């Protein structure tokens, strides 16, 4: 195994993990603070990507489109919270799952009606090519930008949660909601803001990943499952847990896909290894989740002491 391969796969894992983090951060806050299972989180990711594609077409600028999509998705998220989700906080998890699953279906059909099944969104031309990182490794410059954006958002998020007054309220809400209310926190407004914030993070992930993947109806569902795995691994309600969990899942998934088939070939017959390898690689993160839950049932960084 060469150093270049390892470096490239690490970058891939990091890039994937950071994008997962953007989704998981919003999800873990909503779940942790509001005790609300929001399956429709992936729909906001989809809406963010579609808005970005539309704005990119209208303005001609990718970065402007990302910004506008962020604002637009945050507004949609807040409207969703005030109109529907707010009524679900007091209900049990089953009702929340059913209601937010309904929102997924409605969102998918609405997007299909408004935009159609798929819209194009391309990488900004300046970032379409590769850059040389070390001799022998030309890496996609756009993926590097994704890593940079992901890291920047992670740092900002950390500062916002750890150093600001709003962040303090969020942490208070996550660790003990009743006590926070008793201390006079306007929990209603806080919830709406947190929800809008989570939606904005979704929009960044959707807009950044759109050019690499595809902006299409249903894009949120598959990644939502991974985001749930991340927050369960990281500990529900914990931003730090979401970051560590996301990078762990990103790296394990990438490395598994890259090296597991080759590893199996050392021990097994070639045809058996090529059949088993991809199958095992795709369940690897669930094995990881099961293992972590076995030793740390609350996740790596439980928010509630």
């Amino acid at each position, binding site marked *: 195994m*060469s150093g*270049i*391969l390892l470096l*490239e*796969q690490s970058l*891939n894992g990091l*890039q*994937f993990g950071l994008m997962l983090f953007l989704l998981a951060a919003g999800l873990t806050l909503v779940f942790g603070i509001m005790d609300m299972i929001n399956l429709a989180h992936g729909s906001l990711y989809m809406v963010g990507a579609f808005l970005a594609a539309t704005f990119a077409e209208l303005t001609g600028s990718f970065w402007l489109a990302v910004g506008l999509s962020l604002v637009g998705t945050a507004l949609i998220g807040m409207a969703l919270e005030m109109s529907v989700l707010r009524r679900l906080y007091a209900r049990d998890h089953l009702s929340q799952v059913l209601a937010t699953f309904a929102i997924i279906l409605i969102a998918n059909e609405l997007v299909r009606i408004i935009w159609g*099944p*798929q819209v*194009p969104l391309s*990488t900004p031309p300046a970032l*379409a*090519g*590769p850059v*040389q990182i070390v001799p022998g*490794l*030309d*890496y*996609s*410059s*756009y*993926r590097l930008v994704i890593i940079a954006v992901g890291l920047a958002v992670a740092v900002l998020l950390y500062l916002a949660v750890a150093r600001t007054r709003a962040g303090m309220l969020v942490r208070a809400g996550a660790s003990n909601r009743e006590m926070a209310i008793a201390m006079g926190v306007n929990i209603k407004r806080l919830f709406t803001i947190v929800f809008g914030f989570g939606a904005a993070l979704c929009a960044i992930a959707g807009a950044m990943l759109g050019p*690499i*993947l*595809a902006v*299409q*109806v*249903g894009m949120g569902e598959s990644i939502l499952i991974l985001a749930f795995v991340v927050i369960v691994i990281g500990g529900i309600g914990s931003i730090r847990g979401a970051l560590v969990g996301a990078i762990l899942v990103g790296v394990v998934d*990438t490395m598994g*896909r*890259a090296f597991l*088939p080759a590893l199996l070939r050392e021990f097994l017959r070639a045809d058996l290894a*090529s059949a088993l*390898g*991809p*199958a095992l690689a*795709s369940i690897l993160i669930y094995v990881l989740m099961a293992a972590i839950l076995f030793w740390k049932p609350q996740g790596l960084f439980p928010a509630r002491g």
Partner: protein
Amino acid sequence: MKRTLLALATAVPIVFSAHAADKVKVGFISTLSGPNAAIGGDIRDGFNLAIKLAGGKLGGLPAEVIVADDQLNPDVAKQNADRLLKRDRVDFVTGTVFSNVVLAIAPQVLESKTFFIGPNAGPAQYTGAQCNPFFFVSSWPSEAYSEAAGQYVTQRGFKNVVFLAPNYQGGKDAANGFKRYYKGKLAEELYTKLGQLDYAAELAQIRAAKPDALYVFLPGGMGINFIKQFVASGMSKDIQLVVPLWGSDQDIIRAVGDPMLGLFSLGHWTIDLDNPANKRFVAEFEKEYKRLPTGYAASGYDTGLLLDASIRKVKGKIEDKEALRAALKSADFKSVRGDFKFGANQFPVQSYYLQVVAKTADGKIAHKTMGTVLTNRGDAYVQDCKMK
């Protein structure tokens, strides 16, 4: 009861031949949503064009096409097939894109003695021992494009090739076909999840394997994403990418643009094939849909022509399944791909061409035929088919 009637109808066709059916119903199960929706859409548009040019009829009978979206989900496809067979009582089932969908619905379609005409995927199982009188594939046996690709990279003298495909039936068939004709060293054999959209991990492995050529078998949106990411990774200048016909077709050219120029592909049809049927098809397709047709559309169109010719040959008496089968098998029509015939297993025996993506005289980007790679090629399993 139905079975008895059918037996009677086939045993003493004279009794029933007095009246022909008053219309023909076609169940069209296809992938029409998700990242691979363009494939199903193209097959459907090609198929509908053939019916439209025949005046809304197939072989003189008014045609009703009932379209169902399988969402690339075998379970959904099965439900669709169930409804089309039992409620709508269709005479033909066609439209399928992916081999895993074909394998899911084929048993119930064949059980009901309804003709299945695969316009795209032709899973290898049905070319051999499992061949069935009601199972036809009008496009190509699923190993054929990859056989042609193996033949081509061997001819070009490539010695260190990476193979990449999704981990599903079609991908495995592709690997078998490629390895049958490729004589060099297989540097790496990579399989991804079907529907995967991010190929970063695979691209890193390809870089590490340092191949001189790369053969990827990734249908629809998967191929679009792969080629975009392959170009962005900077490897495209050192490694010759070779794909199946649809790996560089109009959908992908639209999405990727100029970096596609110079890409080689292998297939049973090319947009510039010089025969009157093809010229008419390309012109009519462009007129009707305002875009250039893909190989998928060509197969859909040919499937329409096949049904049209066969129903005409039995004079609209589609209840006479023996006669209809013989008519289908004779493939008595001018195909857009030029000469082709069905083998004993009812899969095509035909030529496979090398194409390159190039600029046309009027500035469009399209395929150009570079030569014939395999001639009169059927498949490797036909001898296992004991069907008469």
